[in-house]
């Protein structure tokens, strides 16, 4: 279910605009890398085994806080393109409630960005595992 873009957080709207304008794989990859660089950094303490998302081929860490029922996640990865994927995912999920997290159609989001293939069922990209971790966090809290 595609959401009216204007209902999206500003960062997500920016992602839509920028990736929508990208001409090919090379531009998309460069965009991903630059989005990755803008990720809020994690502290060394946050890059802990506990925050490691299992099921990714490259290491990905995720932390999240529930602020009045709205979730804020931060994350990082060793790999630059993964950081970029993480950044566009975080842009989309920012401030969602646990319920919204459960029902979010991430495949659709990545499709809108022309990044469908990156949402792999295997552990290679790990975005599915990241999303699962977000949902688990949301569920634990209830």
């Amino acid at each position, binding site marked *: 279910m595609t959401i009216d873009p204007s209902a999206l957080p500003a960062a997500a709207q920016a992602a839509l605009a920028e990736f929508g304008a990208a001409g090919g794989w090379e531009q998309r990859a460069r965009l991903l890398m630059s989005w990755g660089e803008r990720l809020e950094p994690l502290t060394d303490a946050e890059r802990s085994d506990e925050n490691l998302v299992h099921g990714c081929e490259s290491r990905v860490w995720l932390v999240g806080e529930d602020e009045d029922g709205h979730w804020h996640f931060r994350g990082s990865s060793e790999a630059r393109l993964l950081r970029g994927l993480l950044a566009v995912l975080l842009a989309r999920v920012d401030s969602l409630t646990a319920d919204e997290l459960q029902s979010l159609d991430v495949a659709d989001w990545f499709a809108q960005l022309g990044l469908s*293939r990156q949402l792999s069922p*295997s552990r290679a990209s790990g975005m599915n595992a990241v999303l699962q971790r977000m949902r688990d966090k949301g569920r634990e809290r209830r």
Partner: protein
Amino acid sequence: MLSSPWRSDFPALAVLEAQGEIYLDSAATAQKPQALINALSGYYTSGAANVHRAQHTTAERATRAFEGTREKLAAWLNVPGADQLIFTRGATEALNLLAYGLEHLVRPGDEIVVSALEHHANLLPWQQLALRRGARLVILPLDLAGAVDLPAARRLISAHTRLLAVSQLSNVLGTWQPLTELLPLARAQGALTVVDGAQGIVHGRHDLPALGCDFYVLSSHKLYGPEGVGALYGRREALAQLRHWQFGGEMVEIADYQHADFRPAPLGFEAGTPPIAGVIGLGAVLDYLLTLDETAVAQHEAALHAKLVAGLGKRRGLHLLGRPQAALASFAVDGVHHGDLAHLLTEQGVAVRSGTHCAMPLMNSLGRTGAIRVSLGLYNDGADLDVFFAALDRALEMLA
């Protein structure tokens, strides 16, 4: 009359017919639809890859198709959450996985309960588990029709019962087992329940959550799919009790030389490269089966089965084993050895199975050394049965 509208979807039927062969052994393994052949050719022609491992495009396609079958099978069984389905080599491996994976729950003196009609695959893993753990294997007797005797089951399923393992549809007697009554008896004692759906899955759609078992096993090759593929369904809470069994490949989360952590179900129980084309092929078969009119299939199968049972009933000296309700019928003939009958039926191009049908203890308890089993697929016609009956009469005449 009684002609299968789906027969031409299965190319082997015409080939066999042209050779003068009639296939009435579908309970052993089913013939395959063209949809499967196309899926296998298509997959191998367009590029194979290993699954869950690499990120390249070919691997992505294979992984998506592979996981697609898990979703399709979940939908077929009304299972919410495809991660409750583990792919195995077949029903036999699924049952062995259970018997090893649940071993830690079985203590000396515990009882494992199976029925008297189980296929070796749903008997021996439990028998050997009982022997390993000093537990007792309790056998539920049958009534005359060939169903588990419920009053006896009420007595035998007790506070000692740790696990109940029982078939849905008997591969020898063709009888549906009274699962709706049996499973609650075990559950009431806190015992785990395992249903062997190897035959049941082929006849009618089953709603596993509604059935209320903890585990259910099946084989693809009996459901018109390829061999080498099967599945184990487990309720989420039941799956969580399974210990890891086979090790290697992508089932591991983190490994060092002296220690390792494993992934949860399903991937944690799928060690090594799985039968990728086979799983994809099963998906294509499910797609094909979904295009069929379920009621029409059920009616056709019921009519064929009625004709089979009625025809057998007319032969003098012929004894049915139990009172078959679906899919197949097994019989013995006074003074005639089943091996001789099978021999002469084979000579006449009729493919039926003779012997103990992987249920030696059942045969012994029925006082038989073996029997002939005639079993049906949705592609069989009434004419197949006419050929069979003519061949049977001729064989009996020769052996008289």
